[in-house]
């Protein structure tokens, strides 16, 4: 196996992790809240898509689009109806509540879908690949996921920089009270931020579901990978999460190749701890949150 292929695989895997990470970073950026149920919400999206495909017999594309729209609504209601009330002086409350949410989602899915692993079938695309040279081949699907990640991040960047609502997000992130004085209703902005975050994590969840198997307990792993990508990427920048995801993906793939299958994930964690020790504010540290 030549190394270029492996590193390439790692980079493309980084795109998937970035899809999970960007929503976590957005929610933290806008309202300084870390959503411990972020990974589970991505898996919830995968199960919804699965249900739409299997019981509603919708083609995967339509099922996915419908799921993403549904998750937008779920995100808005979840924040406006519950999480907004946990924000305040005591910052341990949102952590406890979102952890409780993670438990609820996991066990709810266990009841609804049992514990067996599932997969979303995307047809031939999954194993088609592009042959560049006799040694070098890139799978179409991982490439598509990476492109989707870049597109999502670019779209989010454009949204934040070019649109009126995006500016309102950034203003609220800078100074919540001053934003209120400009006529910005924080409760609405927070709910929209969560809704947008859930759109990105749903794309990640569905992309993961097509790539490998998933089951109700997969959520936390994705939360951890998203978290590591955000921290390594630097907590201030959207593009940083892509770089963080790539570093994580490459570390895991190389680790698995060098030390054996079981050790790949561990190498990812080890690289994360290394970055945390050496450069705690990550590569792109634009705003270091104290």
């Amino acid at each position, binding site marked *: 196996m030549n190394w270029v292929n492996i590193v390439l695989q790692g980079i493309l895997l980084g795109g998937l992790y970035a899809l999970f990470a960007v929503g976590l970073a957005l929610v933290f950026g806008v309202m300084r809240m870390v959503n411990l149920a972020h990974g589970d919400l991505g898996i919830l999206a995968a199960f919804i898509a699965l249900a739409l495909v299997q019981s509603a017999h919708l083609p995967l594309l339509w099922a996915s689009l419908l799921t993403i729209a549904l998750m937008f609504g779920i995100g808005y209601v979840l924040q406006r109806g*519950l999480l907004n009330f946990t924000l305040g002086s005591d910052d341990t*409350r949102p952590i406890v509540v*979102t952890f409780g949410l993670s438990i609820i989602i996991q066990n709810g899915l266990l009841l609804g879908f049992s514990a067996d692993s599932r997969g979303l079938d995307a047809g031939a695309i999954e194993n088609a690949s592009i042959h560049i040279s006799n040694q070098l081949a890139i799978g179409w699907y991982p490439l598509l996921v990476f492109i989707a990640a870049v597109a999502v991040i670019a779209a989010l960047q454009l949204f934040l920089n070019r649109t009126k609502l995006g500016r309102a997000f950034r203003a609220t992130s800078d100074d919540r009270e001053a934003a209120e004085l400009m006529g910005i209703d924080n409760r609405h902005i927070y709910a929209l931020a969560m809704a947008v975050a859930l759109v990105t994590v749903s794309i990640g969840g569905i992309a993961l579901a097509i790539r490998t198997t998933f089951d109700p307990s997969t959520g936390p792993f994705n939360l951890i990978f998203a978290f590591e990508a955000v921290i390594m990427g630097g907590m201030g920048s959207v593009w940083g999460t892509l770089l963080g995801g790539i570093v994580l993906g490459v570390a895991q793939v190389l680790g698995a190749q060098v030390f054996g299958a079981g050790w790949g994930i561990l190498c990812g964690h080890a690289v994360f701890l290394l970055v945390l*020790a050496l450069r705690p504010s990550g590569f792109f540290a634009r705003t270091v949150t104290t």
Partner: protein
Amino acid sequence: MSASPGLDAGDREAASKGPSIPAFRVARSKRMHVYVLIASVIIVGVLASVPLWSQLSTSSNLITLFELVVLAQMWNLLGGFAGLVSVGQQAYIGIGAYGLWLLADEFHVHPFIALAGAATLAALVALPIAPLLFRLRGGYFAIGTWVFAEIMRIIVSNIQATGGGSGTTIMSVASIPFKTRIHGTYWIGLAAAVGSILIVYFLLRSKIGLGLTAIRDNELAAQSSGVNLFRSKLIVFVIAAFGCGAMGAVLGLQLLFIQPASSFSVNWTAFAIFMVVIGGFGSIEGPLIGALIFFVLQQTLSQQGSTYVLLLGAIAVVMATVAPRGIWGWVVARWDLHLFPVRRGLVMESPPERAGPAAPSEAAAASDAS
């Protein structure tokens, strides 16, 4: 302000004028706490006698209660007092269980002694990890602790000697006659539970406890008063790791068979959060009540599996949003009742005579020294 003897007046000569310092004493507890002490001693005494007169099943069931008490007290020490919400205490529970296996089976230390070694091992592992994790704050600290727990789980799962993912039986424990093992584990469990309460109690009564409460109330003001944030949090983090390590070892003694998926399971954190949120954050009594409630629920409802855990999660979410102080928080708000006297009350022996028109103040009764 007269420079009173015995107090190092520093390098400046203090002019002795101003009101003389009236006699005073610092009341740490009130009369009712004597009754609480007596009641506690009686309860512990009764509990200690249980193995002598009850069936073995009762004893082994109560071991689980003791484990829950330790877990709840340690999680609350971190989350309730130091403001450090950890989602990774299962790392130290796992280290405790596998530490017991390591010391007992590999190094042939008697299991009951190996337990203390396992707990110390958990504390030693926590020491270097804490400074790294403290670079993260709030929610990111929580996930950071979870990452460490995952690291430990993966390492243990990939070492053949520990039986890898499928787990192992602690042979030296299995060789102890069943009755002796259950009774021995019971008493050790009871000691661990009482010990965890005493650790938190004496920590809060100490200077460290004073510093911790100050940090929780206002971090900047605490630092400006001389409290070292890093050191205080490190002490609490290592103690909590030690406590969870002990709990993991008791688990090993109780279950005999240990595997990474259960020893390092995140469900331990879910149970801990449920107990502390329901019982009440930031007090010793709260987690105790939470542990009792959870134990009763577990004994009666646990057959339903994920519905039960779903129910726990839902209750914890509702309580944390609607009644964040929990049951004991409500009791304190309602009756200002404190079973474990950790506060300090100032009692002036004689009403202080003071120059100036201030109305004579009655002796500052310690009654409201909550």
